[in-house]
């Protein structure tokens, strides 16, 4: 995949090559080469885990800044529901946050939770009429969709073929804005306020195919300081909220199931759990359910890497806000005809070791042969996440055996062993040391 279509990037200046991210990346997409981490774009799903774990803050999300507002005559802020949990003291009226968004420069605001809620109703209907492809898997988290396309292609038929709340809401909001302002579409900018880099990538990918109604993505963490100040200055909040409480619940793991009122459901969050569920589903080991909600981030989108608040605190606030909200969406006109994807999602073969099956089998034989010479500790000192990954890199010509410290040590011992010791004895000094180590 093209480098431009990723949102997670590395700041070479800050990277110390410490390999923390290498081990934590769920896709084994990171290597340390020449003292710096590199991301293998083909493997990366923009989950943001490396940003989360980097102790040197060398991993960044490339998203837009508030400067993009200048590019449009009329701008619509589309706040992700997770934004509502970020601010201390806001437990009953989210209109304060929505009004503050206008104060920092947006012409208007349209809640993504409204789109989410409309989608929930449609999801419920879809599940009632589905028979063969149950369980249906939610497609709201782009990271989950990416990993299914790459690692679990047999589950693609289970994906809910609905636009994400972000896309759906953008279309809805743009339509309304066009009616209201009479402006041409290109002068109206829909700007998503995002909890994660994955959403930004989803927009880039869709825009590439000319299918996104979202014009820019700004991180929650980016606007947070300005928005916090603006919130404090709001005296009379405008009545901008439209969604009911179920739509807001989407910010939290399990909220989508609840909003769609599907009783036979399963929800899981955090990449490790998501992968386990997908494995189990693929192996037909799961009890039968109608709907599966999966969120890459722990706790759901409140755990997104571009949020500011601790996900559990944010969740608590959102629960409070939900109690103070009407149980249903305002009966605004909702463009429900617009929910299905334009294009079906397809298998992404980026993880294959070779595009030709015979060549892949030969290559794997070579990889296993190399791997048998590595020590199997998966120590990570070579800059690869495992001995198997290093073996694969070597077989493909991206790395050499000399990156393995154990192999280098052996070679060194061999070399030293051939020479006389300084004291004139014939004993190989290093080999002796290794021997005593073995005995210990």
């Amino acid at each position, binding site marked *: 995949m093209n480098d431009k279509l990723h949102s997670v990037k590395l700041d070479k200046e800050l990277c110390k090559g410490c390999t923390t991210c290498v081990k934590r990346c769920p896709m084994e997409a990171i290597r340390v080469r020449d003292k710096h981490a590199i991301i293998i774009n083909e493997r990366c799903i923009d989950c943001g885990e490396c940003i989360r774990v980097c102790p040197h803050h060398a991993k960044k999300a490339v998203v837009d800044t508030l400067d993009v507002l200048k590019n449009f005559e009329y701008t619509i802020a589309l706040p992700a529901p997770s934004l509502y949990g970020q601010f201390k003291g806001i437990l009953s009226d989210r209109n304060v946050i929505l009004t503050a968004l206008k104060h920092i420069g947006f012409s208007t605001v349209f809640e993504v939770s409204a789109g989410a809620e409309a989608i929930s109703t449609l999801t419920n209907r879809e599940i009632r009429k589905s028979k063969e492809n149950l369980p249906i898997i939610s497609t709201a988290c782009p990271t989950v969709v990416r990993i299914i396309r790459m*690692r679990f*292609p*047999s589950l693609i038929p289970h994906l809910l073929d609905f636009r994400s709340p972000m896309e759906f809401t953008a279309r809805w909001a743009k339509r309304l804005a066009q009616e209201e302002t009479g402006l041409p579409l290109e002068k109206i900018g829909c700007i998503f306020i995002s909890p994660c880099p994955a959403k930004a990538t989803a927009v880039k990918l869709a825009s590439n195919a000319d299918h996104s109604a979202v014009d820019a993505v700004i991180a929650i963490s980016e606007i947070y300081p300005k928005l916090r100040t603006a919130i404090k200055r709001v005296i009379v909040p405008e009545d901008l909220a439209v969604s009911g409480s179920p739509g807001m619940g989407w910010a939290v793991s399990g909220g989508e199931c609840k909003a769609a009122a599907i009783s036979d459901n399963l929800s899981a969050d955090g990449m490790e759990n998501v992968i386990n569920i997908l*494995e189990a589903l*693929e*192996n*037909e*080991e799961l009890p039968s359910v109608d709907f599966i909600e999966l969120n890459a981030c722990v706790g759901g989108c409140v755990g997104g890497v571009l949020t500011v608040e601790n996900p559990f605190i944010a969740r608590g606030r959102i629960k409070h806000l939900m109690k103070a909200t009407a149980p249903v969406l305002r009966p605004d006109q909702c463009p429900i005809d617009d929910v299905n994807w334009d294009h079906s999602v397809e*298998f992404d*073969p980026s*993880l*294959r*070791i*070779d*595009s030709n*099956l*015979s060549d*892949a*089998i*030969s290559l*794997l*034989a070579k990889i*296993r042969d190399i791997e048998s010479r590595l020590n199997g500790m998966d120590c990570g000192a070579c800059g690869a996440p495992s001995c198997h990954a290093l073996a694969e890199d070597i077989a493909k010509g991206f790395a050499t055996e000399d990156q393995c410290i154990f192999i280098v040590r052996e070679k060194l011992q061999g070399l030293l062993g051939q020479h006389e010791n300084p004291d004139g004895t014939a004993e190989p000094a290093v080999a002796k040391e290794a021997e005593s180590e073995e005995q210990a």
Partner: protein
Amino acid sequence: MEDLHLEFTVVPDDFTRAGEVSGKVKKTLKDLGFPPLVVRRTAIAMYEAEINMVIHANGGKITVTINPDVITVVFADSGPGIPDIGLAMQEGWSTASEEIRDMGFGAGMGLPNIKKSSDYMDVQTELGVGTTITIKIFTNP
């Protein structure tokens, strides 16, 4: 091109590790680029046979032979053997203990599922000696 051979040992009575081998092979087949359905069928058949080795025999050996046209898996154990294979192949027939059933196994669906998921299945079994099951999954059946 030479076939690729993979060998695994299944340890008896360790339910926490049950399914480990089929999981590894599934990943390997995906990495190689076998069609999703071929991977899935192999994984399901292997999982059932692997679990049977854990529950009904004393573990054993799994050998996987891979070439672009066919995946062959041999499950060999030296367990008690199957007295009546015709009966064992029937859906719902199981000798699993109460304890095993409580763990969610013992529906008597394993062997029929293996048959369903594979293109070829052969069972050689001798009482007191052991059981060897061979399955094949063709890439283009």
